Every structure is written in C-alpha cells, then in structure tokens.
C-alpha cells in the first residue's frame, strides 16, 4: 500500500478521492493549498479549508493547509491580469495545475516521504507502451477535466493518482452521502476560484498594478468605426451579450487588438476559422514533434468544446499550425488548444496565438 497526499479543495470530489484511497488501504494525508486573499482581507478559501478539514476529520486522515500565496500570485493571477491587458483570454486553471498545485503537492509528497499525490479530477492517468504518461478522458464525459491537465509534466504524472476517472458525479455524491462526508451536497464550483462572482473586469481593475487600457473603438473587419467600447478587458472573442451596440444584425466580438485598442465586431459567420496557431506546447503521449512533422488529432479549443478533427503540424520550435477538417467558431487567443488521440488520451496542447 502506498502513502498518498490528496489535494483537497473543500469540495465533494476530492473528499471522496481521499475516502476511496483510504478505503483501498492507502495511507492518506489531506492537503489544501491556500492560494489567495479577497479584497476585504479575508482568507479567500477559508470556507473551503474548513470544509476540507472537517471532511478529513470525518474520513479519519491527517490534514494540513499550506501557504502558496506567493507562488499563486506570481504564476497565476499576475499573468492572468497581464494576459487580459494584452487582449487575450487566459485559462488560469491550466497554469495553476502545473505550476502551483502539482508543484506544491509533489513537494509536499517529498517532504512527507509519500509515494503519490492524488486529486479528485474526472480523468484517468494512463501509462502508454512507449513509457510515457498521459491523461484519458473520464468515462462520464460530462465531467471530463483532462483539458485543464494537459500541461502537467511527465514527472508529475508519474506520481499522480486520479481515482475518479471511472465514476459519474452522481456516484461520487452517493459515496459521499453514504460515508457521511459533510460536503456531499455542496455545489460544484464553476467560475475561476479567485473571481468567484465571474466579473473579470472588476478583478482586473482592482488587481492591475500597471495601466488599464482605456475606452476605445468598436470597428468592423474593414476598420470602420462602429462605436465606443468600455476598454478591451471587458470583452472576449465570441462574446455577444453586453456589447451595447446596435447594428441591425447579431454582432459578435471577432478579435481584440491590444495594440490599437480596438475591438473588432462581425457577424457570426465571420467568427469561424479553419486554421489556428499554438505556442508554449506541452506533449504528453508523444515526445516533442520535429519541425515539419504532422499528427492527426481531435482538438478542443476551449473547456466546453466537444473537439474537432484536425491536422497538427510542427512549424518551428514550440509552435504548431492546426488545420481543422471543419472550421471552428471563436478560437480565442490565450485559451488552450488540447489535442486528443482516437483513444481519448491527451496527445498534448498549447496556447492559441
């Protein structure tokens, strides 16, 4: 039996993860990472820490909460703000998983001389015949979370357990109820954890150390001025609601130009693209591609995207061109594109540029 450090978020999934591992006979230690503080000075995740602690008491495992405020700011929230100012739409959870969560949990595993770290993600870790590790989509795809995990390193994956890959959310809730775990009925977290109200623009206004881009122009694809926008941080590619502009046809954000401080507006049809570029790559099931090498994959361009068949071609170092069989709608620079093979395993991924 192994010694396992379980990352506990305060929610039902990670509590059940700890419970299942303990039941399987492992020596389990619960850990919550303290990552951020809200504006009024309260510990951002104090309620979650209380929940994780009481779940640990109930399960009967030791529990620690660990400070990684500095790392979280440096690796996650500061880049999040910078990206928005550059007109990008970042995926902070993707970055956090690799640079904060796994980094710190693997460190704690070393400190505590544990063999593995475990999380309550709905995904399965697979060791391939080529010796590499990857993550496979959960059996119950509605809760698949592999998209958020594609940046994990091979070293991190080799030490990770994800026992929930086979379960449906409803099973997990049932297990929690039967085990008397107090968070059984807790609501799923939806938004980015450090922006609980989902209002990114407010968050950026409050947390930006530099200058925030001012108001600017809405323009059409030919550069004709259509009206005034509130500042580029208020918009995302594909957005329709809240533009405050009437053009006589349904208008969408096609592009955000940070350099000219313009937001390009277009009809829905204009939002589709057959080709995108990706940078900052991480490969999982295969080693790095060589320049010119091509691979076929289903590509997800955002968390809630089913995936579209495409050909991926390595251009030069750390950049790929993705050509879709069918055009995809509203690929937003800053979001991650994640590549899957025919077995639903992650091939790799990168950031759309």
């Amino acid at each position, binding site marked *: 039996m192994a010694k396992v450090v379980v990352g506990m978020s305060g929610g039902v999934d990670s509590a059940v993860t700890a419970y299942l591992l303990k039941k399987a006979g492992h020596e389990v230690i619960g850990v919550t990472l*303290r990552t951020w503080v809200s504006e009024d000075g309260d*510990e951002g995740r*104090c309620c979650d820490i209380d929940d994780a602690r009481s779940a640990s008491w109930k399960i009967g495992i030791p529990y620690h909460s*660990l*400070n990684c*405020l*500095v790392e979280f700011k440096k690796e996650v929230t500061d880049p999040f703000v910078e990206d928005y100012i550059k007109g990008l739409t970042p995926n902070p959870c993707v970055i956090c998983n690799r640079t904060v969560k796994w980094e710190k949990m693997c*460190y704690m595993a*070393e*400190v505590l001389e544990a063999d593995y770290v475990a999380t309550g993600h709905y995904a399965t870790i697979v060791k391939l015949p080529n010796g590499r590790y990857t993550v496979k989509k959960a059996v119950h795809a509605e809760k698949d979370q592999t998209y958020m995990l594609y940046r994990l390193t091979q070293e991190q994956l080799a030490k990770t357990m994800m026992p929930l890959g086979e379960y449906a959310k409803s099973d997990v809730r049932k297990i929690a109820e039967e085990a008397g775990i107090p968070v059984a009925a807790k609501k799923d977290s939806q938004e980015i954890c450090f922006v609980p109200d989902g209002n990114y623009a407010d968050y950026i206004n409050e947390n930006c150390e530099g200058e925030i881009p001012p108001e600017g122009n809405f323009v059409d694809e030919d550069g004709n001025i259509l009206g005034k926008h509130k500042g580029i941080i208020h918009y995302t590619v594909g957005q329709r609601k809240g533009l405050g502009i009437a053009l006589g046809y349904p208008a969408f954000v096609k592009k955000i130009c940070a350099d000219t401080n313009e937001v390009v507006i277009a009809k829905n049809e204009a939002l589709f693209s057959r080709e995108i570029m990706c940078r900052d790559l991480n490969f999982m099931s295969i080693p790095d591609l060589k320049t010119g090498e091509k691979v076929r994959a289903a590509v997800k361009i955002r968390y809630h995207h089913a995936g579209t068949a495409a050909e991926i071609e390595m251009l030069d170092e750390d950049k790929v061109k993705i050509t879709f069989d069918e055009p995809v709608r509203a690929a937003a620079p800053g979001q991650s594109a994640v590549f899957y093979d025919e077995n639903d395993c992650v091939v790799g991924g990168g950031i759309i540029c």
Partner: protein
Amino acid sequence: MDNAATTRVLPEVFKEIKLYLTEEFWNPSSTYESAGKTARKIAEAREKIAGAIGAKGKEIYFTSGGSESDNWAIKGVADALRSKGDHIITTAIEHHAVLHTCEYLEQHGFEVTYLPVDEKGFIDIKELEAAIRPTTVLISVMFANNEIGTLEPVSEIGEIAHRHGILFHTDAVQAFGHMPINVSEMNIDLLSASAHKINGPKGVGFLYIRSGVKITNLIHGGAQEKGRRAGTTNTAGIIGFGKAAEIALSRMEQRKEYESSLRNRLIDRVLTEIPYTTLNGDTEKRLSNNANFCFKYVDGESLLILLDQKGICASSGSACASGSIDPSHVLLALGLSYETAHGSLRLTISEDTTEDDIDYVVDSLKESVERLRKVSPLYKKMMEE
C-alpha cells in the same frame, strides 16, 4: 514547545475553578450571603493580581482576555481624550490586538505612528521622543514581544511618556507572571494581561487602569467592575486567574532561572549544530522561555508538519496568526526578507520542559531541517554555486 500560545491549567488552579463552577456557582452581584462569599473571593483575586504589579485592587478590571484589554485601553483612551488630540504612537511589532485596533482608529480619523524596530526588535527611545506631537494622547508599546521575546525598554518609555504628559499603555500578555512588573516605578498607566499564558484558564484577563486615567467603556451594560466593564462576572475564571497569578509570582525567580538555562541550551545547540541558522531577537533582553529561529532554505510550514509528526508542538510566528498567510509582521519589521521570515520557528518552553525534551527537539530539528533542505530547490542551487 509552544507555551507562548497557551499553557496548561495547573491542578491547584483547576480545583478552584471547579469549585466555583459547580458548588459555589453564585453570581457575586447577588445580595444573599452565598453570593457574597464569592464576591469576597473575587476581591481577593483582584488584590493578588494588583499586588503582582504594584497596583491597587481598585485599579484592576477583569476582561475576557488580552485582546479585549488591548482594545479597551486604546479605543477607550482615544475616545476619552479625543478633544485633547488624535495621535497615537505604537510599534510595528505589536500583537494584532493592538495593531488592528490602531488601524480601526485610523479609519475613524486618528493618526497613528508605528515606530520601527532594529534588527533585534527594540524601538529607539530617541525616535519615540521625536514622534511625540502636541496631539499625542497615548503611547502603546508591548512589554515583551510574543514572537521573538524581545523586552522593550518599558521604564524609559514610561518616563518619557510622563515627562510629556502622555498616557502609557503596555501589552504585557507575555510578560505578566513571567517578569517583575511595577506599574508605579515603570510609569505604566494601562496594562493588559491574560490568564492562560500563566497556567490559568482561557477567556479571562485584566486591564490595569491607573486611578484618575480617563477612559470610556468598551462593553456597556450592567454595573460590574464598578460600572466600567459590563457582563456577568466570570467568577471561576477570575478566581482561577488569581490562583495562577499567586503561584506564578511565588515561583517567578526560580522559574526564570530554570527556563533561561534550558532556553540557552536550546539556542546554543541549534546555532552550533544546524548550519545557516540565525536567532531572532536579543540574546540577553528576551523572555526566559522564548527562542525564535530562522532556518535558511526551509519552508516554515513544512517544518512544523515534520516536527508535529515527531510529537513536537511548535509555531511559525505567533499562534494567533497561523491561520493567516503573510509571514510574521514582526520578522518583516526586523528587516528580514519575505523568504527568510517564511522559514521561521518559535519554540517556547515552560517549567514542565526538561533537558531531555530540549535535546530531543534539537535532534529532531536537525533531522527535519536537513530533510527539507534536501528537497529545497533554493538549497540545491546554493550548494551547486
């Protein structure tokens, strides 16, 4: 090894507490005779505690603990003397009960000077005097720091305060019962203390208010504590506090000597046997039970976990702040970097601590620090260079 966080209630103290919770459970404000006996016992406790700091019984006001006493002293004086002035002087290394109270007053129009401290945690008397304004109404400087044990020059501060006609409050939560205190000789006008730091129960403390000092009430209600602090008298707590203070006072000298010798052994061994380690605070002018170290290239939180696994209870910074995320404001005020402050450890001993305990702690520390450095990327980098 965390006796600055709290201490155990002594059996003699518990006997009294039990008696006054179960059999003699009366409300001392009642008029019948049984209640009167309890009232007399409270008066005795008040006298004992007053005697411990050279005050009169009528100058001791029982509270719910150190935080309430600090709040009352600062808010009460600020409010009572508002017409005279709106400036308060304190230090950067006070307990949060003082610092956050001062911040609260700042939000309500007061001006507060937070005196810096040197690398050992001492304030500069000259800087204190220079900070005094015609509008200064209160100087609040702690007797002994709760994290690094540094003893501030209280007598000199009191002397300066009185020369300028300013009230002087000291948070003596860590010092009361541990250090000789005389409010007259030291020119102290207000002093906060707590029972559970001297083997008394939690939830009781006192504020000494020199006769004639103007202060408004914090807790309004009934006529308890001569109408200055409402709330049904915490009989068992106060009587237990009295007993604990009596015992602490009677054994103070021998305890100080015993604790100092153990503390010195702890400090000497740690500094000689564990590389890249520093002592925070002063070697001489520090609480006899306090040691505080910084271990470079070590994460304080992980160190606490490893020590806990070996059955050693310690803290990083103060216990009150361990739920918080910033590294100790005290260590930062000493000029330590964020990273160094993060690797700090406070060990506080008691009369129950033995030489064997100290040796076990040092051996465990050596092992744990070594292990954490082995997995520290910073340490690896440093060794390569």
